[in-house]
């Protein structure tokens, strides 16, 4: 009867010699100590800020900002508040991070697979790419793309033209922007409908393959539905979409969609730099799969493409995902190098200009740190969830 024995023993052991009680006490003391230190720091900071005449608190977020920002995803002008500059900077950070993660993943996978290609030339080009871009500091690469490459573009009046609707110059890329007319809502509805249809097609195809063994070209069918359905609705609803084409007026192009060179340079640098790391992760992931897997698949008559898609990559993903998560986190944090070239990200707009205009260093810096922490934790959470899903289900 172990339980009784334990009780007996506990009764005899003094309070300090019982490991369970002792660890509880120590944990309580540690918790109190951490709390007390935190409280002292807070109090002290408050006191010192006050005695130095530095304004504290978050009231500044409601004050009018009074400065312009070159790119904002939400309506913003000088009359908006510092709180809005925070959102503008945050969205710009998320924009460049999301695009960066997207492109770096695609490029990284392509290069990683190319590195293992049997074609000598392709494999060498991939290797050279990885070694070059992995070993040059990111800041230098950003400067290179911004100051050396993009600066060679012509001025607004000598812009490079593409069929008279798109323009490229030192101030950025100018594209026609869609102007949605009435009835465009139907097209969006059709798009949603198409997505739902694809979901069911996929389910149906899988069931049919399980039952009869016949394969259905899911990919092509889905693509057809995805493009075809909205297009038919678009025509039926009166083709209510127009394009606003940028025009040279005064100093520069107006109208249309503008991609500022600061975004392009940062995005190119982040993508190319991170892709080099992702490529190595993909390569090591694929190499970790035993050669027997490929041979077995080939012996069954599975094509090389399908082998990679259905046998190798799914197994390699288990090795790839954890380090891939780190690369995504790096990319998000590296996007703060934006200030070096004036891309209006969170650090540049909020921890830079807003901090300087208001002088609220502690509030602004803690908000900025909280944002990066939250973003990183969210990505990490998502990737862990995805990792669990991809993990090998052992039977």
């Amino acid at each position, binding site marked *: 009867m172990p339980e009784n024995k334990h009780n007996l023993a506990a009764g005899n052991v003094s309070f300090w010699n019982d490991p369970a009680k002792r660890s509880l006490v120590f944990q309580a003391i540690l918790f109190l100590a951490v709390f007390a230190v935190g409280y002292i*720091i807070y109090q*002290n*900071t408050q*006191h*010192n*800020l006050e*005695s*130095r*005449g*530095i*304004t504290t608190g978050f009231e500044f977020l409601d004050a009018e900002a*009074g*400065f*312009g*920002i*070159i790119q904002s995803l939400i309506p913003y002008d*000088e*009359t908006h508040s510092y709180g809005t500059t925070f959102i503008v900077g945050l969205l710009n950070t998320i924009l460049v991070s999301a695009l960066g993660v997207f492109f770096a993943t695609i490029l990284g996978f392509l290069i990683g697979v190319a590195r293992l290609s049997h074609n000598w030339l392709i494999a060498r080009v991939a290797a050279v790419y990885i070694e070059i871009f992995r070993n040059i500091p990111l800041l230098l690469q950003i400067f290179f793309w911004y*100051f050396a490459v993009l*600066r060679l573009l012509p*001025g607004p009046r000598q812009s490079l033209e593409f069929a008279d609707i798109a323009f490229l110059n*030192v*101030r950025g890329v100018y594209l026609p922007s869609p102007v949605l007319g009435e009835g465009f809502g139907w097209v969006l509805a059709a798009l949603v409908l198409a997505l739902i249809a694809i979901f069911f097609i996929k389910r149906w195809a899988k069931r049919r393959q399980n039952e009869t063994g016949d394969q259905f070209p899911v990919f092509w069918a889905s693509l057809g539905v995805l493009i075809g359905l909205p297009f038919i609705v678009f025509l039926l609803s009166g083709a209510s979409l127009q394009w606003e084409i940028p025009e040279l*007026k*005064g*100093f*520069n192009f*107006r109208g249309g969609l503008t991609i500022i*060179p600061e975004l392009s340079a940062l995005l190119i640098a982040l993508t190319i730099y991170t892709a080099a790391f992702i490529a190595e992760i993909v390569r090591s992931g694929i190499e970790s799969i035993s050669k027997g897997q490929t041979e077995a698949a080939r012996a069954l008559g599975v094509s090389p493409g399908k082998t990679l898609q259905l046998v190798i990559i799914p197994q390699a993903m288990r090795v790839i995902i954890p380090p891939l998560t780190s690369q995504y986190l790096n990319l998000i944090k590296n996007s703060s*190098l934006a*200030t*070096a070239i*004036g891309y*209006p990200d969170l*650090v*540049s707009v909020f*921890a*830079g*200009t807003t*901090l*300087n*205009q*208001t*002088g609220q*260093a*502690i509030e*602004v*810096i803690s908000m900025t740190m909280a944002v990066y922490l939250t973003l990183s934790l969210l990505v990490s959470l998502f990737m862990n969830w995805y990792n669990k899903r991809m993990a090998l289900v052992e039977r």
Partner: protein
Amino acid sequence: MKKIGLVAAATAISVSFASASISADTLSTVKKKGYLNCGVSTGLPGFSNPDDKGKWQGLDVDVCRAVAAATLGSEKKVKYIPLTAKERFTALQSGEIDILSRNTTWTLTRDVSLGLNFAGVNYYDGQGFMVSKSLGVKSAKELDGAAVCIQSGTTTELNLADYFRQHGMKYTPVVFDTSDQTVKGFEAGRCDVLTSDQSQLYALKIKLSKPNNAMVLPEIISKEPLGPVVKQGDDKWFNIVKWSLFAMVNAEELSLTSDNIDAKKKAKNPEVKRFVQSDGPIAKQLGLSQDWAYQVVKQVGNYGESFDRNVGKNSPLNIDRGVNALWSKGGFMYAPPMR
């Protein structure tokens, strides 16, 4: 960039723990260190810029040298710390520097909410615009829709927004960290206009590879009184910086220069006498030696000398004295009497 984060983190930490430093006075800290930490710009010809031997020079640098001469007896005992516009106030608040002498505009917000004190004005400036001549623009009112290069975290950024709003015009702000990057952006054609304080425009213009292709527009859209800044809560230090600057201005008024001040030591003029050998308890109350004002003028020169040497007629900038002339000569420069 990264530095601003560091500086801000340093403030957070030092503000958190160093409650003692608020009571410790800057003068004794400086004397103990043996040198003065002076925050300057990252390089602005005429105001604070290292020369080809790496020695800092300029109108703002002369304020640092004057304070060092007054407090430590030697204008050489200064450590210059280059700061961007974004970093400067945090550096001062955290005690990383003893004086900020970096073309900083005196504004109400900065005076009351940052825990800082402005110790006077050493240059009266105003914001202007520089464009390239090929643009064919003659006035700032023709700038509707222009892309404007600008340094981040400055009053300039706010004035610009105000000006365009007031005149119902639109602009694209292209914001850089340092004035160097701003010039690069302007040269590369990233923007049509560079805006800054007029004095800076002249200084930046000579940095261009083809200075003659650019021109400064006639409009001045703001008041920019520039001067040294100290931390709030140390009146003694505040007084020392203030009066080091006033000593330079007063010396010009009394026609005392670094060359003739030795000869004037025995002058009969009571004002000059007070200046050269400030006898009585005043020097002691300032916490300085008897000859502090003499040292300032002997080692650094009077305000006029400093102006001519750095930004005026003896410098490549060749800026007119204009409103920065002495009050007796039609300008704004006026220092309280030393008595």
